[in-house]
């Protein structure tokens, strides 16, 4: 037993409980002024907890917490924990502004959000299927609540769809885990890998693989399992949409990598073909469905499905280089998508709609927000010299290197198509006439954070070397 390995998670959990208790004892004064400062305080406590969590991740040694592999702290997990804590901070900064006038229940919101972040951290550390499943549920259940948090019509619709689909897919995943356990006699991913390498495979293996693939496919939102995505993204409070598009997807890809590369790598030929088909379908349908969308959050939902398609290329490659490209891409994708949703959250506070029409003439109302949107969208589309370009470059280059030239070509074609719909947003922001020309103002904190995101996108795009090498170092030597 080595509890020190759990320090980051314990800190996040304690922060969550602290936020709830502080909210209970401070929100009693119903005076408008005191309540407002209390709400801000809750956000700051949450941010402080996440920053402390980052330091704790830095100081935590590698190892196994409970002797078995139910909690593994390796470089792979630590890379993602930094990412989740960073995403958490940005989401809370955005929420503090977004929630201010929309709800009075702030304590519960930060409480659930912090627990969900804790769930993602446990997820990437799970080296065993049961603890993986439990932490995945910790992420899912919290997400259902947060999607419907504002109790708007669309929010509840999105939440219900997400819940029904999620419950079904997690049942399927659990069934798959059960079959794999029945075949191999162990739930430890490493043990499964060793068992399957011996060549003694049971007949139900394809069934178990297919079920597990479906369960993960739901979480990463790849094509046949994507029906919840547009509704949940549209209905959720915008910072939560940002969280679903970044942290939830990143965590799901992390466990996808761990299970398939550590556990099922010995039987690659059984699932590579299925993955290639899913990958091509996801790129095609995700990007093509984004074109006719008129709601900006739905458009980005479909585009995030398309991005899951590019990321699957890295899993098809399945080498250390391919996986490091996925990890690098997840970093730059999360940064850009968070920037975009922060801008949307600020603007939606003023124009009260998420339709692209509402963004007409935004250039006159806030040049800064438009610049931010431009840079983040250009990074998502993969234009040089931004980070998104390097992400796609590594992914496609390693695909060519590994002999999957056709995947790189298809990926390139669809990322060119994606430029079209990203620039539709920019067109309405820059080249259309504004109906209302009032200036959109927002807090200096948000401005600083947005500047940092833009600088980050440029920095990673111009000097990607240190980031990609840290990703390569974080890929464990599973082979």
């Amino acid at each position, binding site marked *: *037993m080595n509890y020190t390995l759990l320090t980051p998670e314990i800190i996040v959990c304690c922060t969550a409980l602290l936020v709830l*208790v502080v909210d*209970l*004892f401070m929100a*009693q004064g119903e005076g408008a002024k005191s309540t407002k400062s209390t709400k801000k305080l809750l956000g700051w406590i949450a941010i402080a907890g996440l920053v402390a969590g980052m330091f704790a991740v830095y100081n935590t040694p590698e190892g196994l917490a409970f002797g078995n592999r139910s909690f593994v702290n390796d470089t792979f997990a630590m890379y993602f924990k930094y990412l989740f804590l960073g995403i958490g901070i940005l989401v809370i900064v955005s929420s503090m502004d977004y929630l201010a006038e929309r709800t009075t229940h702030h304590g519960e919101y930060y409480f659930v959000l912090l627990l969900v972040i804790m769930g993602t951290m446990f997820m990437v550390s799970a080296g065993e299927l049961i603890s993986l499943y439990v932490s995945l549920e910790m992420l899912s259940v919290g997400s259902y609540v947060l999607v419907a948090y504002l109790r708007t019509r669309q929010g509840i619709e999105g939440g219900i769809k997400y819940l029904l689909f999620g419950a079904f897919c997690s049942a399927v995943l659990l069934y798959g885990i059960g079959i794999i356990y029945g075949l191999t006699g162990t739930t430890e991913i490493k043990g499964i890998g060793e068992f399957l390498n011996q060549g003694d495979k049971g007949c*139900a293996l*394809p*069934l178990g693989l297919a079920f597990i693939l479906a369960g993960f496919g739901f979480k990463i939102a790849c094509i046949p399992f994507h029906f919840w995505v547009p509704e949940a993204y549209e209905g959720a409070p915008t910072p939560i949409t940002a969280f679903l598009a970044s942290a939830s997807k990143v965590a799901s890809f992390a466990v996808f990598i761990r299970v398939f590369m550590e556990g099922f790598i010995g039987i690659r030929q059984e699932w590579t073909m299925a993955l290639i088909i899913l990958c091509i379908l996801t790129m095609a349908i995700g990007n093509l469905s984004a074109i006719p969308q008129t709601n900006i959050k739905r458009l980005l939902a479909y585009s995030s499905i398309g991005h899951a398609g590019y990321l699957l290329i890295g899993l098809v490659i399945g080498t250390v280089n391919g996986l490091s490209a996925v990890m690098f891409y997840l970093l730059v994708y999360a940064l850009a998508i968070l920037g975009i949703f922060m801008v949307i959250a600020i603007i939606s506070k003023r124009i009260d709609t998420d339709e692209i029409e509402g963004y007409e003439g935004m250039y006159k109302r806030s040049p800064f927000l438009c610049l931010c949107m431009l840079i983040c969208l250009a990074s998502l589309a993969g234009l040089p010299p931004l980070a998104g370009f390097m992400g796609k470059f590594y992914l496609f280059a390693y695909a060519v290197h590994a002999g999957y030239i056709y995947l790189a070509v298809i990926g390139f074609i669809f990322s060119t198509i994606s430029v079209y719909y990203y620039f539709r947003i920019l067109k309405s922001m820059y080249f259309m006439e504004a109906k209302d020309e009032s200036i959109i103002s927002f807090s200096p904190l948000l401005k600083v954070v947005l500047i940092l995101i833009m600088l980050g996108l440029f920095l990673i795009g111009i000097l990607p070397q240190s980031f990609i090498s840290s990703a390569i170092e974080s890929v464990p030597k599973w082979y």
Partner: protein
Amino acid sequence: MKLLADYMWVVLFMGLGMLFVFGGYITSWLIRPSKPSSKKLFTYECGEVPVGSSWVQFNIRYYLFALIFVIFDVEVAFLFPWAVVFKELGLVAFVEMMIFMAILLVGLLYAWRKGILKWM
């Protein structure tokens, strides 16, 4: 061809699964005695004669009380095995259980501060 042969097992598995469900229905339909009566169509209400429709509104507070009850019910279910092996596990187990109970107590605290425990 090998792939096809592998998936044959999947088909077989699905077939057996369906057989298991529908086979049960069909067998029971074949061998059970059939004596329909109007009383058998009554709503089941713990053996009592049902009064009124089941679509009645009831106070949401019943639900909240039940929820809080379940939390502590489960807590007690965990306390029993803990108490049995308490001597062997020693201090660590004590601290762990206290942390567990503290987290549940936050739930009670929440219910109390939100006024759920007040019956109106």
